């Protein structure tokens, strides 16, 4: 089982490296998106509510625009990567299980590779962000972005299981990420301070990212809250993934 897990992890990572579209999106689209926001944002400040402390902090519109843009772009990319992993590999994964591959090793290998990809995406996004705007506590910002991309990796897995077509899944991720990230941004959203945004997938990551970038106050419990949301959504997706790879045959004893 350990050898199968190692193989599943190694080959899943290689498979993701061959996903050139996601690589181009990450390498080229993200900096271009930052540059556009940097050039076009207004210079004033806007009040952003840190819910954990019940206070408003003044955040530069440019900086908030960059943070929102970063979360939107990274969640889109990661959701796309996860959705593609589930949809494109569903049948061959099932065949591997029929051939004797441990389902647990396969699912764990796939999830570990997605986790690694999420860390790479978050690290790159935060590194490039630091070129455009300084952050007070870069590790906190990084944790926030990790929370967001991991949540959307889970969303991608879930949508990969429940949607019938590839396009449906992609559009759902695009729409969800847009609504999720932009409604939390008070620059363009009067609803940013409404209670409903607390239920959005990237609510905790957004709160952490803004707090880490602009203040010295960080509610560390939000790391666990974000992770809990990821695990909750991911568990539903994994259940579906396990169900999809279910076979009816009892395998012979190992040789």
């Amino acid at each position, binding site marked *: 089982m350990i*050898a*199968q897990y190692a*193989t*599943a992890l190694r*080959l899943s990572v*290689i*498979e*993701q490296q*061959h*996903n050139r579209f996601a690589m181009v999106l990450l390498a080229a689209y993200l900096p271009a998106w930052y540059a556009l926001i940097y050039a076009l944002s207004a210079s004033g400040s806007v009040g952003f509510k840190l819910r954990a402390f019940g206070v408003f902090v003044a955040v530069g519109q440019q900086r908030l625009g960059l943070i929102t843009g970063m979360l939107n772009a990274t969640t889109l990319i990661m959701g796309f990567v996860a959705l593609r992993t589930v949809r*494109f*590999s569903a*049948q*061959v994964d*099932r*065949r*591997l*299980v*029929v*051939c*004797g*591959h441990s389902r647990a090793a396969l699912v764990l290998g796939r999830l570990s590779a997605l986790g690694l990809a999420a860390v790479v995406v978050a690290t790159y996004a935060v590194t490039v962000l630091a070129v455009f705007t300084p952050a007070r506590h870069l590790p906190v910002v990084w944790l926030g972005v990790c929370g967001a991309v991991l949540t959307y990796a889970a969303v991608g897995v879930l949508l990969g299981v429940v949607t019938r077509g590839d396009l449906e899944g992609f559009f759902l991720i695009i729409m969800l990420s847009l609504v999720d990230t932009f409604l939390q941004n008070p620059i363009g959203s009067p609803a940013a301070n409404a209670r409903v945004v607390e239920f959005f997938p990237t609510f905790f990551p957004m709160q952490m990212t803004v707090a880490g970038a602009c203040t010295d106050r960080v509610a560390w419990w939000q790391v666990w809250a974000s992770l809990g949301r990821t695990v909750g959504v991911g568990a539903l997706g994994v259940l579906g993934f396990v169900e999809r790879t279910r*076979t*009816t*045959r009892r395998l*012979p004893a*190992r*040789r």
Partner: protein
Amino acid sequence: MLGIVGENGAGKSTLLKIVAGLLRASRGWVALRGRLGYCPQEPQIHTGLTVLQNVAWFRAAYRLPDARAGEALMEQLGFAAHRHALVETLSGGTRQKLNLALALMHDPEVILLDEPYQGFDWETYLQFWEIADGYRAHGRTIVVISHLFFERHRFDRLLRLRDGVLAPAETA
């Protein structure tokens, strides 16, 4: 060597999936003795990996100590030159060869082949029968399904699937 023929939509692939354990039968049961090799109609392979990486993943699934059998099948089926190529860059015929090799690389005792030679050129088609005859000579059970058969003499038995019933093709 058993051939199963039937019209499009007769349920040939469904039957094979039930035997392979991919689908649950609405009634009845499947008794299967020995290692199973299953080659689906549509190549079920990782298109984002190379040929060798696909072989490595299935080697792990079969718990084989090395990939020698996979390499030998690549040579036999004539696509060893593509071992480092990404599957998404390969032709349909070469993908089908890899699809077949992945079903055979663990020396299975029962082999289920769903339209295994579609997309093969004539040389590979003949090579396929040579490999299949070799397995038969070693006492393996081979089930081939197709919507039509040109060479009935290659089979020990030929059955036709119609209305959910398998019957000898000659009397159907």
